[in-house]
C-alpha cells in the first residue's frame, strides 16, 4: 500500500450536515441514514490516484457540535485540505460558514485547500440554499465549490478528489513545502512494493508441505 503522497484532510461544518456520511460514502461507498453523533474526531482513509500517482487521503472527520469546538480546533493544524460542509436544506448551516471559515483559517496553515460543500442535494424539494448562493460564497472566499449527496453518492468522489487535485497542483507549483509535515502532506515510502499484501504464499506452501 505504498503511496506517493499522504494528504491530511479535515471535514468541518455544523452538526447534522452530513460530514460523517460523506466520509462513509467516500471510504466505504455506502450510506447510513442514522449516525451516532461524532465525538471529537473520527477517521477514514482511502487511496486515490492523481496523475498516475497513488495518494493516500487521511481524513479527520470532526464533531460538528458547538461544545466540541475547542477540541476539534486542535485537530485543524497540519491539514492540507478541508471540506467545509453545509446542508442545503438548512439555511442556518449556511449562515455559519463564515465562522467556520475564520476558525479554519486561524487554526490551520494558510495554504490549506478548502472545498465548500453543499450537501444533501438529493433533497431538492426541501432546499433552502440556492446553488448560486453557495457558488457566490465560494467565489468570494476563494474556495472550490460543489453540491453533493452522501445519500446518492453524487459528487462525493469528486469533492474529495478535486480537493486532492488542487493540493497536488499546489505541490507542483511549489506552493506547499512537502517536507514540512505541518502542511498536512507527507511523501510516501520510496520503494513502491505494491505486491506487499499479495505474496506470502511461499511460506504457506512450505508449511503445507511440511505437515504431510
Amino acid at each position: 500500500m505504498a503511496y506517493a503522497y499522504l494528504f491530511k484532510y479535515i471535514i468541518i461544518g455544523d452538526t447534522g450536515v452530513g460530514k460523517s456520511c460523506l466520509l462513509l460514502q467516500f471510504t466505504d461507498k455506502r450510506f447510513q441514514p442514522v449516525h451516532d453523533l461524532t465525538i471529537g474526531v473520527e477517521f477514514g482513509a482511502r487511496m486515490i490516484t492523481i496523475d498516475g500517482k497513488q495518494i493516500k487521503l487521511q481524513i479527520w472527520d470532526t464533531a460538528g457540535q458547538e461544545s466540541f469546538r475547542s477540541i476539534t480546533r486542535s485537530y485543524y493544524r497540519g491539514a492540507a485540505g478541508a471540506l467545509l460542509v453545509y446542508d442545503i436544506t438548512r439555511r442556518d448551516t449556511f449562515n455559519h460558514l463564515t465562522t467556520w471559515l475564520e476558525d479554519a483559517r486561524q487554526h490551520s496553515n494558510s495554504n490549506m485547500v478548502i472545498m465548500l460543500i453543499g450537501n444533501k442535494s438529493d433533497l431538492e424539494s426541501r432546499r433552502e440554499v440556492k446553488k448560486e448562493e453557495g457558488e457566490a460564497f465560494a467565489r468570494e472566499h476563494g474556495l472550490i465549490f460543489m453540491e453533493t449527496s452522501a445519500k446518492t453518492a453524487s459528487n462525493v468522489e469528486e469533492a474529495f478528489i478535486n480537493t486532492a487535485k488542487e493540493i497536488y497542483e499546489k505541490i507542483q507549483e511549489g506552493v506547499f513545502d512537502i517536507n514540512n509535515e505541518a502542511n498536512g502532506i507527507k511523501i510516501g515510502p520510496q520503494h513502491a512494493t505494491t505486491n506487499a499484501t499479495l505474496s506470502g504464499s511461499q511460506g504457506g506452501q512450505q508449511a503445507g508441505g511440511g505437515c504431510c
Partner: protein
Amino acid sequence: MSDSERPKESEGQLEDQEMESQQTPSPVADSPTGMLGSDTDAAPVRKTRKRPENKPLTEPKEEAPEIQKTEDDSRKKSSESAVTQGGWGYWGSWGKSIISTASATVATVGQGISQAIEKAETSLGIPSPVDLSAQVKEEEEEDGSPKSKNAGEETDGASSLGGAMGMFSSLSSVVQSTGKTVITGGLDALEFIGKKTMDVIAEGDPGFKKTKGLMITTSTLSQVLREAKEREEKQTAEVSSDTEKKAHYGMLFDEYQGLSHLEALEILSRESEAKVKSVLTTMSGEELAQLKGELGQIKVPFSLVEFDEEEVEEKKDDGGTEFVKELSEALADLHLSTNADKLGRSIKKAYDSISEMNRPANGTKQEGEGNEEEVHSRAEEEVHSRAEEVKRCTVEDIHSSAIRSLAELTARSIEQFHKVAELILHYESQETTALEQAKTLSQITIVLCREISLLSKKFTSCLTTLGANEKGDVLNPLITGVFLEASNSASYIQDAFQLLLPVLEEILKHTGQKYC
C-alpha cells in the same frame, strides 16, 4: 536471570540492574555503531515506567537522558557483577547464536533489534540444540569468546533501545529470516517452547519483562508516533519475509486507525500540557502550592502501573466476556459517555478466530490453558492426526490472525483512550474527580494489557499445537513474532495511557480555579 536475585529486590530495582548489566561496556564487532551515540536514545525508554517517581510529563523531555546517564555511571559497578554472576550464561549458546547472526543481519538496520531478538528468544528458554551454532560459527569466531560476546551483544542492544520502539515489526521479520537459517531445533524445541513460553513469560520472566518494559516510553511520546510511522514506511519499502508481508503489524495497526487516534490523542495531550504549564506560571503562593499538590496526587496512578506482574489467569477461557465486563465497569466508573462496545467486538472477533482454528480438535477445551502440561501432553499424542485434520489452517494463517487481532485490539484500545480524553475535555464530570478517573484509567490499562497478553498466549498455544508438525525454523519465528508484537501492543497502550495524564491535569486546573 538467576532466580536467586528475584526475591531480594523489588521488581523495579531488578529491572534497573538488569538493564545496567546490559550497559556493561564491551563493544561488538558485529555492530559497531550500536555503542555510539545511542546512549541518550536509550535512556528515556529505560527509565520510564520502572521507577515509581515517574518523571512528570509536564517537565521538559530533554531532561530525561541526562538523569539517566548519571544513574548509568553510578551503577556500572554493580552491573558488572551482575554479568559475571553468569545470569545470562543460563540461557546457553542458543540465544547467543541467534544474536550473533541476528546482529550481523541487522547491524545496518537498527541496533535495537539485536537486543529485542535476544530478549525474545532467550525468554523462550529453549535449550540449545547442538547443531544450532554450526551455521553461525563463522560469525561467532569473529567475536572471540562466546561469553564476552554474549555480554557484548546485550550491551549493544540495550544501549540502543531508543531505536527498538520503532523497529519492532521489522525486528520480527528479521527474527524470522534469521531464524530460518539458525534454528533447527525440531520437535524437542517446539515442545519446550510450548511449555516454556507460557510459564516463563507469564510469570514475568525478567528477560521478557524487560523486553516489554524497554518498549515503554512515557517521556518521548512523539517518538512513539514518529517511529511507528517510520516503521510503517520502512516495512512497505523493504518487505523482507513472507510472513511479514502477510501480517504486518504496523500497517494493520494503521489500517485500524490506531496511528490516527494516537496522533490525535497526542495533540490533545500536548495542548493540555501547555495549558497547565501556563496556568502554573500565573499562580503563586498557597494557590500554587495547592494545585501542585493535587497535580502530584494525580501523577501517582500514572507511575504505579505495573502489568507484568499481573498474573494472567490461565484458566480464563470465556471468549473475552470477563474482559469486556471488567472494562465496561471501569469505563462506567469514569462517568463519561463511553462504552466498551468497539473493544468488545474486536476481542470477540479475536476469540472467534481462535476457536475457529481450534475447532477440529476437542473443541473449546483445547484453547483453555488451565493445565498446560495436560494440554501439551495431549497435544503430543494428537499431533499427527490433528495436523492433518486442520491442514486448511496453516501456521502462517494463525500467525497472521494473531498479528491482526493484536493490531486491531491495540488500535481500539488507543481509540478508547483517545475518546476518553475528548470526553474528559468535553465536559467535566460532576460525579467523579480527576484523581478517581486517573485511578480508573490505570486499572483500564492493566485490563487491556492483560488481555493482550492473554490473547497472545492463546494464539501461540494454537501455533504450538497446530504447528506441532512444523519444523522449528518455521514455527519458532512465528511464535516469537506474536510475542514481540504483543509486547509492542502493550507498550502502545501504556503510552497512550500516559498521554492522558496532562489531560486530567488540565481538568484539575479548572477545578483548582473553581476552588479559588
